[in-house]
């Protein structure tokens, strides 16, 4: 019943190959890639529309598995339960998560353990990590965020986030609040780090594209496209387009992600 209802909710439920519509649902992290590449793809291919919505990775995985969407985008790996859905994985980019602080904050290096202690509320003053006597202002993402999920998995391990952290549902907000407030700390995708904030090194490794591709930067993840079963021609063509240099070297880079093709490139 629920599945039927869900299937009715979106247009992409008929499964025919003639469709000129690709429904892409999922992680907000991937929106910069999917929205822009979708627009460009539609521009090049008359009559095709790529319908993109960002509802979180979980929703993306759920909707591609119920057939509501052609492509589910996710900024996290599949959970155990989701492996049974029989989804096909196409990695499209790297995303590294930077821990950011106010530019004037003298602290510029933290260990994974320190970051964990800060975000779980054990360390509450910068003094405790070698900074000034300044209370730490925690900025967290909402639980729908794939970034939070990744950060939680990579950094937090079993520790719980401090419940008193400010929860903001958008990367830009996190960045602008931290740019504004001296004692604040938060995390955003490396691609969104600007000069307004400072990304600290983690475990001695600078948060940079090189360290990500090299695999040394600890807080990183892979962004995925998930599909299920037979994919319509348009959708398959669109995925191919996303993996092409046209997208990887322009859109993905402009969005601050690291192209999935960068690794092979650096190997050559």
């Amino acid at each position, binding site marked *: 019943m629920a599945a039927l209802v869900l299937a009715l909710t979106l247009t992409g439920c008929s499964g025919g190959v003639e469709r000129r519509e690709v429904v892409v649902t999922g992680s907000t992290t991937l929106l910069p890639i999917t929205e822009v590449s979708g627009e460009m793809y539609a521009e090049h291919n008359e009559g095709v529309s790529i319908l993109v919505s960002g*509802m979180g990775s979980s929703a993306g995985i759920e909707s591609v598995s119920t057939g509501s969407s052609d492509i589910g985008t996710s900024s996290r790996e599949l959970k155990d339960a989701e492996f049974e859905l029989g989804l096909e994985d196409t990695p499209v980019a790297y995303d590294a998560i930077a821990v950011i602080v106010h530019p004037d904050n003298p602290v510029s290096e933290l260990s994974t353990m320190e970051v964990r202690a800060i975000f779980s509320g054990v360390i509450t003053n910068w003094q405790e990590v070698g900074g000034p006597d300044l209370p730490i202002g925690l900025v967290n993402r*909402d*639980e729908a965020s794939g970034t939070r999920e990744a950060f939680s998995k990579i950094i937090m391990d079993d520790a719980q986030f401090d*419940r008193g952290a400010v*929860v903001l549902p958008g990367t830009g907000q996190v960045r602008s609040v931290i740019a504004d407030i001296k004692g604040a700390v938060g995390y955003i995708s490396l691609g969104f780090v600007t000069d307004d904030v400072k990304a600290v090194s983690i475990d001695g490794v600078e948060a940079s594209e090189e360290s990500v591709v090299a695999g040394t930067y600890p807080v990183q993840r892979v962004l995925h496209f998930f599909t299920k079963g037979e994919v319509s021609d348009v959708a398959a063509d669109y995925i191919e387009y996303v993996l092409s240099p046209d997208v990887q070297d322009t859109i993905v880079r402009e969005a601050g992600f690291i192209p999935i093709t960068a690794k092979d490139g650096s190997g050559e």
Partner: protein
Amino acid sequence: MSEPLKTEKAASSSGLKMMSRATYFREAALKNIFLLCAVLAVAAVGLIFVFTMARGWEVVKDPGLAAFLGGTEWSSSLGRFGILPLINGTIAVTLGALLLGAPLAIGTAVFLSEIASPRMRSIVRPAVEMLAGVPSVVFGFFGLVMIRPVVAELTGGMGFGTLTASVILAVMIVPTIATLTEDALGSVPPGIREASYAMGATTWQTIYKVLLPAAKIGIIDATILGMGRAIGETMAVVMVAGNAPQFFKGLGAPIATITSQIVIDMSYATGTHKTALFGLAIILFLISMGLVALVRALSRLNTKKA
């Protein structure tokens, strides 16, 4: 002595027409169509209740009524859906809004009804009305970019939290309370005012000792409805409250309300989590219905007394 006279008249008019069946049916049908439309309003409320209920009642099974209503932790990753921190947040934010907003609104209403010159009134009243029309996202946006940094300075925190949310909500409930209070003051018979002035009372004494007591129930109604608005307000709160489902820790500390938690969670909730969100909606629905019932009971009391 007169007697009823023969009806020799018939030439000029052909007697009374029976109501034609067509007319009768048309009028009756129309009446029933109107009734149907009116009943739709009832049906709408019923439908809302039934559907939120249908989606949310299972909170009594999982996480269980006690864990839902009595739980002190709201965390979807841990599968804990206790609403006490959210209720606590809603109360904190609403109280703050009432403390700031109600005096301002009632003062504005008194100003409009008793003091302002027609010219002043023609400026203030439209302002109040337009304030009511400003979309809540715009208020939220304004709070985010203007009020939050100020509060951050004041409290030394990040500016997301109870105080910022209260300030924004206070502004948002001003029109509701002010308009209804002005109505209440307007329905105080003018004779009472004149009598008070005639006895040598100052304007303020007349307002304080005569008008406000006379309009008391109306003002309470207004405040209750303003409170309802504050409890139900969503977008503006999400944008400035900080959305941390924790118990009140100070004016500058982030907090989450019932409504803000729904918005934050709705985009990704599944299973029990989603059920719990609909459970929150049921609670909001019951609160607003309870407040309406309270206001109606109060006004009935008022008419009885009068």
